[in-house]
């Protein structure tokens, strides 16, 4: 009985946020479910909605500041020392801006195409591995690659990785993530929303680092070594 009361009290404290639509999905579903079967809770929810309406009304009647506030601000900004532009090439910032320039629909399409590209790539890799195990094909494929495009650059590209971020990852999170991992954006977005990043390590250390990055599933949808 106490557990039931505690759950109800807990839900009741969430009603203002449910009225404002700012609960996370899990809590919103809990509240919705309870409202469907608890008439008293529903009545109290309507009280919260009433408060919400009047708070908005009250705030909207407060008016707006005069132009004086803006004039004062920019006079103060003009009096500040002039900032020198950043010397460093802020790739993370630029890519963050680039990402936000896409509409959600464009990003969704890019994600779908990317998923398809990964499936195709996986197929190619699997085929290559099977052939490699059979002791055929690999050498002749390497011969087919012009030296300037393939083997010659492989060593210098040893620190690269291909990455795709989750659709829910926000620009700020991606920027923080890149900085925290000392990763710099090199190229992208390519088909499927894949970016190329450079990591500070190479070899086994890079592999370990990639595993750690992959574990951050709220931001990273896909990451792999890029040769």
């Amino acid at each position, binding site marked *: 009985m106490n557990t039931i009361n505690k759950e109800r009290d807990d839900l009741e404290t969430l009603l*203002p946020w449910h009225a404002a639509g700012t609960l996370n999905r899990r809590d919103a579903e809990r509240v919705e479910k309870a409202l469907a079967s608890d008439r008293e809770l529903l009545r109290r929810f309507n009280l919260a909605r009433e408060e919400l309406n009047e708070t908005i009304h009250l705030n909207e009647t407060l008016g707006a500041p005069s132009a004086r506030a803006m004039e004062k601000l920019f006079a103060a900004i003009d009096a500040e020392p002039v900032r020198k532009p950043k010397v460093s090439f802020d790739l993370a910032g630029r890519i963050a801006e680039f990402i936000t320039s896409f509409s959600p629909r464009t990003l969704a399409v890019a994600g779908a195409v990317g998923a398809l590209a990964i499936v195709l790539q996986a197929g190619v890799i699997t085929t290559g591995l099977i052939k490699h195990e059979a002791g055929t094909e690999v050498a002749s494929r390497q011969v087919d690659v012009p030296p300037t495009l393939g083997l010659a650059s492989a060593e210098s590209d040893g620190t690269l990785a291909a990455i795709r971020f989750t659709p829910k990852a926000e620009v700020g999170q991606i920027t923080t993530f890149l900085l925290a991992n000392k990763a710099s954006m090199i190229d992208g977005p390519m088909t499927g929303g894949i970016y190329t990043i450079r990591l500070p390590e190479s070899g086994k250390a890079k592999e370990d680092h990639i595993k750690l990055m992959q574990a951050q599933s709220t931001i990273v949808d896909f990451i792999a070594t890029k040769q």
Partner: protein
Amino acid sequence: MQATADEVLIGRIASGDRLAMQVLFARHHVRVYRFVLRLVRDESTAEDLISEVFLDVWRQAGRFEGRSAVSTWLLAIARFKALSALRRRPDEELDDETAAGIEDPSDSPETALEKKDKSAIIRKCLTGLSAEHREIIDLVYYHEKSVEEVALIVGIPENTVKTRMFYARKRLAELLKAEGIERGWP
């Protein structure tokens, strides 16, 4: 056409982009002003404070880490400025008991009639709450801040946010009861 994200504007502001500052100011200054005005209850002071808030943004943009929404960051700065201003003039701040007991000097027959309107009474009682309670009510209902965001702005644990909101609403119910509106809660 998608508007430039606040985070991108902050990045540009950090590089000294004045136009980005104008865009950010245009986007947020009214809400920040209203938040501050509800706390300090003085239009002139509120205008001065929002200039200070955005000047802080200009100066500190390079340190913004994107751990919260820009609007949350702005309200946190605004709150700090408003409380500092209130501390400079403690005599003028009213507690909820005092505020609730004050008669509105502008009560004309028309106003009195209006006060019969439930909505108007609720708004009057919202105004009569303490600064602490006004603040949390505004953050949740008007500024649409989640429990986590309110905790960041006010600097209190999330559970305290919930209990403070509960007590703010409870106090509101008491003020409404004094005005003749019985809500049957809490």
